[in-house]
């Protein structure tokens, strides 16, 4: 809905200028939909836009908080406010950039995701308290197979004996990414797990947990691989050292690319209708979009599974005990 309004706005804006550009800017609309924004635009009209709060810190002005509606006038043109200006989703104080701690669309989605996780999972745990000794009912019976799947298929086989230390974090990670991916597919939602800052944080957590819980076997394996002739050890050392960083890096890029590319694909198929301006293309594209959306649901689950699987694999590599001779 907001997509068609954005395209209509572009066409209106384009035709009201002297420029001869008649085509709507499809790429711009698609990129704008997958990027973060200070304004949450649900649909056109007075009640369709949520102006999220802007929180900026700068040395000259200190901490300031105001609504982002000050950055736009009645016709939704960007105007500067109180010395601050908003260009390409970056806030500047005159010429210098400021520290931007605003509640943007993705931050609001993160809060929504956290709230949803709390609501669902505390309901499950309260259900276990109520139904002590009885069969699970309600949302319990939906979440329990997923929790058991994560515990028995992902965490226990990969980490081994001391898996219970890492199980709470890995369960949270799995449900966070799953709910985040699914929320991003709803209409009007923000692309949260497709934001590289969010996946960077998740990968950084993996990096920290892996290296903090690495025992002497893990570090020996990196710096001075046992059981390998000496010249090879000199070669293996830099490779393993870089590997410490590339493993979480690949986690970050994998989740970001999968989710963002899925969204760009869906948006591109919908914009086919606007490019060709034909009803037949519209019907065909809509059917295709439904099929791809179902695939995106599958991808949402698979990417959560893969992220948790690789994280537990890396943790398992870090905490594994020495198992005799031979690697």
């Amino acid at each position, binding site marked *: 809905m907001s997509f068609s309004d954005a395209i209509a706005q572009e066409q209106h804006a384009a035709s009201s200028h002297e420029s001869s550009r008649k085509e709507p800017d499809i790429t711009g609309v698609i990129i704008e939909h997958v990027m973060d924004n200070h304004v949450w635009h649900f649909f056109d009209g007075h009640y369709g836009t949520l102006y999220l709060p802007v929180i900026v810190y700068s040395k000259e002005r200190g901490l300031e908080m105001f609504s982002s509606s000050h950055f736009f006038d009645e016709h939704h043109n960007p105007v500067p406010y109180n010395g601050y200006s908003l260009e390409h989703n970056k806030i500047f104080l005159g010429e210098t950039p400021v520290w931007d701690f605003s509640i943007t669309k993705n931050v609001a989605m993160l809060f929504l995701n956290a709230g949803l996780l709390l609501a669902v999972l505390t309901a499950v745990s309260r259900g276990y308290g109520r139904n002590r000794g009885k069969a699970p009912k309600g949302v319990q019976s939906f979440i329990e197979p997923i929790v058991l799947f994560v515990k028995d298929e992902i965490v226990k086989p990969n980490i081994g004996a001391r898996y219970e230390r890492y199980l709470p974090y890995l369960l949270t990670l799995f449900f966070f990414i799953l709910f985040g991916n699914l929320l991003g597919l709803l209409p009007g939602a923000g692309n949260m797990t497709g934001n590289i800052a969010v996946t960077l944080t998740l990968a950084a957590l993996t990096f920290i947990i892996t290296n903090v819980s690495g025992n002497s076997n893990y570090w020996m394996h990196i710096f001075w691989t046992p059981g390998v002739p000496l010249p090879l050890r000199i070669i293996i050392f830099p490779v393993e050292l870089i590997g410490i960083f590339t493993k979480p890096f690949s986690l970050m890029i994998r989740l970001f690319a999968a989710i963002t*590319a899925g969204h760009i694909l869906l948006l591109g198929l919908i914009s086919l209708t606007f490019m060709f301006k034909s009803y037949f293309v519209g019907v065909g594209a809509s059917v295709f979009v439904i099929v791809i959306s179902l695939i995106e649901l599958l991808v949402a689950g698979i990417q959560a599974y893969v992220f948790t699987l690789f994280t537990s694999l890396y943790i398992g590599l870090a905490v594994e005990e020495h198992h005799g001779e031979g690697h």
Partner: protein
Amino acid sequence: MLFSMLLDVSYAIMGAGIGAGLAAIGAGIGVGRIGGSAMEAMARQPEMQPKLQGSMLIIAALVEVAALFALVICLIISGKTNGVLG
């Protein structure tokens, strides 16, 4: 001078397009091989079909993402040439 600048920009966009196409070929070959081996294995042992299907989907997601890396780079390249992304 303007012509050489325009030539550079057009080479960049052409490179982005060819790169995206090659990425699609890579994804096609990779996922096709996975699907082919999975089909063969399912034909040999029909009782293993659910497990094979599960593993096939997961590995397909991993291979697909490699193609998506290339797609994202191509999008960035083509975005930088008309100032949409950069």
